[in-house]
């Protein structure tokens, strides 16, 4: 009961913070909507990265630290190969590369460590992170590269008659959102409706039992790491097209940590909704809370975007440790 109360207070506070700028007249409706949309778009990108974490955690109980590195690696592959071939061919080839990477990781890292503690596997993925980071630069170089999706970068104005000045949105953001939505629908179908999806969920719960009913652990791991690789590819291309392909992409992936804490480590919808909450939350905080803090406490302001997600995740950990949609485990004592 007490937990529920805390949860309601947390949500009420979030909601109050969300509508405060509108109610207090700190912002016009048009600008407010623009910030909101900007937040949602950023959130989609977080969601994409978080999705990779969730996939692997769901199916193997491994927290894959290397997801960010995989995003960078995929983006680098596409960017560099697209210099020599059409974009679609580069992406197709990048899919092959990510599947091959999954094979290698399964064979060299996961298989020897089967049935080890989660901590051991976490350390192993930490090693994979640095390897993939470095290897990507060895193969593809370490400059800043571009991915050109062929979508105009200039923002377009919509709803001009509804709000004064209209709302500016980017076409590539809309494309990214559509891609993310499609990916999520496919993954949800896969997990809930196919026997392989069921097998993945079974493996996540108990390796030994899954093997004993004839689920081939090794193949499942290759499948799920391939899926995570493909999700990383989509995230990498979207990020890369927006910000340029550079090392910082793998760091931005750390933003996906608060997202999975918020959404729940085992939930695909959780990754999406968590990403959106974090994306909107930090944009709102940066744009509207920052100036307030400057005025009230005479601070320098700024930088809120960097820590807001983590503070929010911490609050959620206190009130709802399994996240919004995570599986609640009932342990017998």
């Amino acid at each position: 009961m007490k937990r529920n109360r805390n949860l309601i207070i947390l949500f009420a506070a979030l909601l109050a913070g969300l509508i405060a700028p509108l109610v207090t007249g700190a912002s016009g409706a048009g600008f407010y909507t623009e910030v909101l949309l900007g937040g949602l778009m950023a959130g989609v990108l977080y969601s994409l990265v978080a999705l990779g974490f969730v996939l692997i955690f769901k199916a193997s109980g491994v927290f894959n630290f290397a997801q960010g590195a995989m995003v960078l690696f995929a983006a680098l592959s596409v960017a560099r190969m697209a210099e020599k071939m059409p974009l679609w061919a580069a992406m197709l080839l990048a899919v092959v590369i990510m599947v091959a990477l999954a094979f290698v990781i399964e064979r060299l890292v996961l298989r020897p460590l089967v049935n080890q503690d989660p901590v051991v596997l976490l350390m192993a993925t930490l090693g994979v992170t640095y390897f993939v980071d470095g290897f990507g630069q060895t193969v593809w170089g370490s400059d800043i590269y571009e991915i050109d999706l062929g979508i105009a970068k200039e923002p377009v104005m919509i709803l001009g008659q509804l709000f004064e000045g209209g709302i500016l949105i980017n076409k590539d953001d809309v494309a990214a959102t559509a891609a993310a939505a499609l990916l999520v629908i496919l993954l949800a179908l896969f997990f809930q409706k196919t026997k392989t999806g069921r097998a993945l969920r079974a493996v996540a719960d108990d390796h030994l039992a899954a093997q004993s009913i004839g689920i081939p652990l090794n193949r499942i791991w290759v499948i799920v790491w391939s899926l995570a690789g493909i999700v990383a590819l989509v995230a990498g291309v979207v990020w890369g097209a927006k910000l340029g392909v550079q090392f910082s992409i793998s760091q931005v992936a750390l933003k996906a940590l608060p997202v999975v804490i918020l959404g729940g480590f085992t939930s695909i919808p959780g990754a999406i909704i968590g990403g959106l909450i974090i994306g909107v939350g930090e944009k709102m905080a940066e744009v509207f809370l920052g100036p307030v803090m400057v005025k009230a406490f005479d601070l320098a302001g700024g930088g809120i975007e960097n820590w807001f997600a983590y503070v929010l995740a911490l609050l959620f950990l206190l009130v709802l440790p399994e996240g919004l949609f995570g599986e609640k485990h009932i342990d017998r004592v």
Partner: protein
Amino acid sequence: MGGGLSNGKSIGDVVLDLQDISLAFGGVRALQGVTFDVREHEIRAIIGPNGAGKSSMLNVINGVYHPQQGTVSYLGAKRHDVNTHEAAVQGIARTFQNIALFKGMSVLDNIMTGRNLRMKSGLLAQAFRLPSAEREELQHREAVEQVIDFLEIQAYRKTPVGRLPYGLQKRVDLARALAMEPKLLLLDEPMAGMNVEEKQDMCRFILDVNDQFGTTIVLIEHDMGVVMDISDRVIVLDYGRKIGDGTPEQVRGNQAVIDAYLGVSH
């Protein structure tokens, strides 16, 4: 699933033959030169004090452990070292001493995983619910429903197994193994931690499985009353060695067995 085995059930040929099995973990010798066989349709019990090597024996049959010495013949052919997955493909199912269910999934989904090996339609066909995949899913769902009826767990289909009481979890564990339609069913202490009523139910289920489906069963059990009641033949292990083998009556009269259980005065 052959019927008509009730009463004068016919014990068939040897389906599993273990010769001179030795298994060691470093200096610990879990099994030392154990030889025994399992015949078709029989209920074969493995008993022995704690640490006698019973679970190790089951794990050898199931492919979890590979013995350093000895040969395993299954269905008349000598078997190379298989892993658990291959053992499952060959028709060997098992339950676990400490229940190993998929706790986040419903009872139904848990049992459905037992059908995984038998499902043939491709990934895309399933994801997009093509008619062929739909038909297959329904077909397997039907088989699962039979198992659910058989074990009388209709009321818990949608319940996440983590929420079920211990006795029922044991039953779901058995249900998942049965859904595989195994040739050989390994039960690791199916009645551990149960009250008298639950034990009686489980005994009935085991006998019915053996009787109605003709499944060959190898089980480990501590409750002597149960073992003597339901087994056709019993093997007794002590410190990794076989000290007795035969019908319940023969084993009960075996001096080495009595010594192992009651201790010997020196």
